């Protein structure tokens, strides 16, 4: 029964800044927003699309998707109302598109709405999305927690530049979700109450939600698992020993779900040497003197014991992987060759490739070039442990390693003036994690196209940070963009994945990092989801005794 279970307390150690997912795509903001705002369709725990505001998922089979793949038609559920009681209409959906694609709005989810030519609203419940060309995967717009529907009436005045200053709207959006915001303290705490107009009269079971922010992962885990102050804590990534210790307390459990987030070592194929003039460092002009050798890359990968990394750093939150795209199953390659460390093999490989320790200083060299690498990542205890371990293995292999740890705000900041961004890649190898939104890997794989290489001419804004460039790869991506059908697309993604990892070792995947959160034993109905927001089924949560 709605509101019968009192208060549920949620802890996001990164506090919520805004509830409008279009203005900040920080995961915490998107997740918090998803308690209020809903898309047409969401992803369930298996990555399957399911209707939220839509009546059903349009497909080619049911006629929802045009045969030529150039349009998709969504039908809204009947009788849907906003939390203020007004009906949800197709105009709201169309407005949402206009809102996010306004050139001055600074919408963070612009990518979701790319390639849309127009949107028709033949009636109040029908939305027809017309694409500029055939879209083999037409489910990008309006799906998942990152693309919720806004109420036109509320946001009408917030188009374009005004979007940034619509404080009231951004912090208290009117939505269709199970809860409505009652109070919002920026970067601190959001309080919500059950939406009186929620479409299922029996839900949600909780009357109020307190969504608190602040602290760190350890404190967050502790607040659920040890002190029981909270029912659920997001992203409680702590070290395995502490995981075990906290779980032994018996107040709660850790829940995980694996998606596409992969911790990897990226190899720089260009020369980052500081001796090069500024503007030529780490550009395609100068291939990397050592890492251009595929044998070296392979040996580096072989020397790593991925299981150890998982055991040391992630425990239940990770598993070793050799793939860039580890899931969902239909597109995950089945490489397992890298999972066992092969130090001797790696040594032999280098030996064979001519990298020998000719001067007896323990460091291999070839043609006067020492096998010496700068290895950078962000400041993060787990990554520093990884750095230390990998450094140990590579030293054993005869590779000299210099470590660097960079403030994440700088590393991921993308400031073209800073030498420390991951795009500039002024290092030989760097380690971080990345994933993609939803289940469609096409945009993700497109990152490694030749024309996405960052460099001074594009203010270092490309996503192909390895500076990988293979015409065969480009051709395959092109093929993907015109292929429809899950199986066929999955096969192509696997091929692309293998080209980057197994075949060339340009990317050395290390750990498939799941989502890892803490759930109190008294919270019922919680289902972990790695494809959408973790609060995706908050309407189903209950108080369990």
């Amino acid at each position, binding site marked *: 029964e709605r509101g019968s279970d009192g208060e549920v307390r949620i802890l996001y150690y990164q506090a919520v800044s805004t509830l409008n997912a279009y203005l900040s795509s920080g995961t915490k903001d998107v997740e918090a927003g998803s308690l209020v705002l809903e898309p047409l369709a969401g992803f369930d725990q298996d990555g399957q699309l399911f209707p939220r505001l839509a009546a059903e998922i349009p497909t080619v089979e049911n006629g929802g998707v045009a045969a030529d793949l150039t349009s998709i038609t969504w039908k809204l559920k009947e009788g849907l109302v906003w939390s203020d009681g007004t009906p949800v209409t197709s105009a709201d959906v169309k407005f949402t598109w206009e809102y996010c694609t306004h050139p001055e709005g600074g919408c963070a989810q612009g990518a979701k709405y790319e390639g849309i030519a127009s949107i028709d609203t033949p009636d109040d419940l029908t939305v027809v999305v017309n694409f500029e060309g055939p879209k083999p995967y037409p489910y990008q717009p309006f799906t998942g927690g990152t693309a919720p529907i806004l109420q036109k009436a509320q946001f009408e005045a917030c188009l374009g530049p005004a979007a940034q200053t619509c404080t009231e709207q951004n912090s208290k959006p009117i939505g269709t979700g199970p809860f409505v915001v009652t109070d919002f303290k920026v970067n601190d705490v959001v309080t919500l109450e059950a939406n009186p107009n929620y479409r299922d009269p029996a839900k949600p079971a909780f009357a109020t939600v307190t969504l608190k922010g602040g602290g760190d992962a350890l404190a967050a885990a502790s607040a659920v698992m040890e002190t029981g102050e909270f029912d659920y804590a997001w992203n409680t990534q702590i070290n395995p020993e502490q995981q075990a210790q906290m779980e032994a307390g018996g107040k709660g459990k850790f829940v995980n779900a694996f998606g596409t987030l992969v911790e990897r070592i990226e190899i720089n194929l260009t020369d980052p040497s500081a001796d090069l003039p500024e503007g030529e460092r780490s550009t395609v002009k100068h291939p990397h003197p050592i890492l251009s050798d595929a044998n070296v890359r392979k040996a580096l990968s072989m020397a790593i014991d991925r299981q150890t990394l998982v055991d040391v750093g992630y425990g239940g939150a990770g598993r070793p992987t050799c793939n860039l795209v580890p899931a969902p199953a239909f597109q995950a390659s089945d490489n397992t060759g890298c999972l066992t460390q092969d130090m001797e093999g790696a040594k032999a490989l280098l030996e064979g490739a001519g990298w020998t320790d000719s001067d007896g200083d323990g460091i291999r060299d070839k043609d006067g070039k020492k096998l010496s690498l700068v290895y950078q990542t962000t400041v993060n205890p787990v990554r520093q442990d990884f750095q*230390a371990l990998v450094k140990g293995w590579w030293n054993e292999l005869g590779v000299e390693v210099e470590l*660097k740890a960079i403030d994440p705000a700088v590393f991921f900041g993308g400031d073209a003036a800073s030498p420390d961004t991951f795009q500039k890649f002024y290092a030989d190898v760097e380690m971080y994690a990345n994933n993609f939104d939803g289940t469609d890997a096409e945009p993700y794989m497109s990152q490694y196209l030749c024309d996405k290489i960052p460099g001074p001419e594009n203010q270092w804004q490309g996503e192909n940070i390895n500076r990988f460039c293979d015409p065969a790869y480009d051709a395959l991506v092109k093929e993907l963009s015109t292929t429809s059908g899950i199986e066929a697309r999955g096969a192509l993604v696997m091929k692309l994945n293998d080209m980057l990892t197994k075949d060339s070792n340009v990317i050395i995947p290390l750990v498939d990092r799941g989502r890892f959160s803490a759930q109190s034993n008294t919270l019922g109905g919680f289902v972990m989801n790695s494809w959408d927001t973790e609060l995706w089924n908050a309407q189903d949560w209950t108080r369990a005794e």
Partner: protein
Amino acid sequence: MTEITLQTEKVRGPWADVWAQFRKHKGAMFALWTLGTLAVVCLLGPLVWRIDPNFIESDTVKMFRMRNQGPSLAHPLGTDQLGRDMLARMMFGGRISLAVGLVAMLVAIFIGTTVGVIAGYFRRLDGLLMRLTDLFLALPLLPLLLVMIFLFRDPVAGVLGPRLGTFLLIVMAIGLTSWMQAARVVRGEVLALKEREFVLAARSIGTPSRRIITRHILPNVLSPVLVAATLGIAAAIITESVLSFLGLGFPPDFPTWGRLLYDGIAEIRTYPERVMWPGIAISLTVLSVNYIGDGLRDALDPRIRGR
């Protein structure tokens, strides 16, 4: 009195008196011993205890067996989460932390004393320099450090190499952001000293300003400066540890005490001793330095020493 008595008494430097007085301060002497022992252990210990602080068993099975050990003969302070020897790490970290403390303090004291003396001695520059001091007091520390590190890390590292470069940078950063207190104290002291008759006497002799400063002013601001200096070492060690806490310190494989402490805090539930070692080391150092400062203040005060 006409006979030339070449038999002058054994020349006692000014420091002999200071030392004599200092020795009477039990707390300070004890602190000096403690700090000395810490420093010697950190400096010379690695020559005896020859385990690489960053050594990790590359054989993973062995590595797992080595992890998180408690104190034992093989590892008197135990090992960390990767099986690295804590004693080696503490000694290595101590070198850096102590060096950072010392050098950063020198930088801060140098700047602070210079600014304070100039502001106090030359009326004209007083307003300007004191506003500068206000400015630095008001500046947010963190962006300042970030900017410094961003602007200068690569050029400095280019000249001095990454390790020395980072060291210099951190030391400069801490020094540049912590001189203000010393400047204020020194200025106040100089303002008073300037009016003392022996300064007037020097002027009546014709001693130029720069020599009045070096000969008469500086030696007499020595005791507040030294006290500020001892406090400065403590502050610098703590600031370095906060920098580590915020991820702005040394490269990740540089186990400074601050970093060890920070890393240890994450493990405080499972392995409390890991946070104890660096915590104790830092506190002992700071405490000793404070007591030494106290002793120095007494020892340098001629009124006390005269007795």
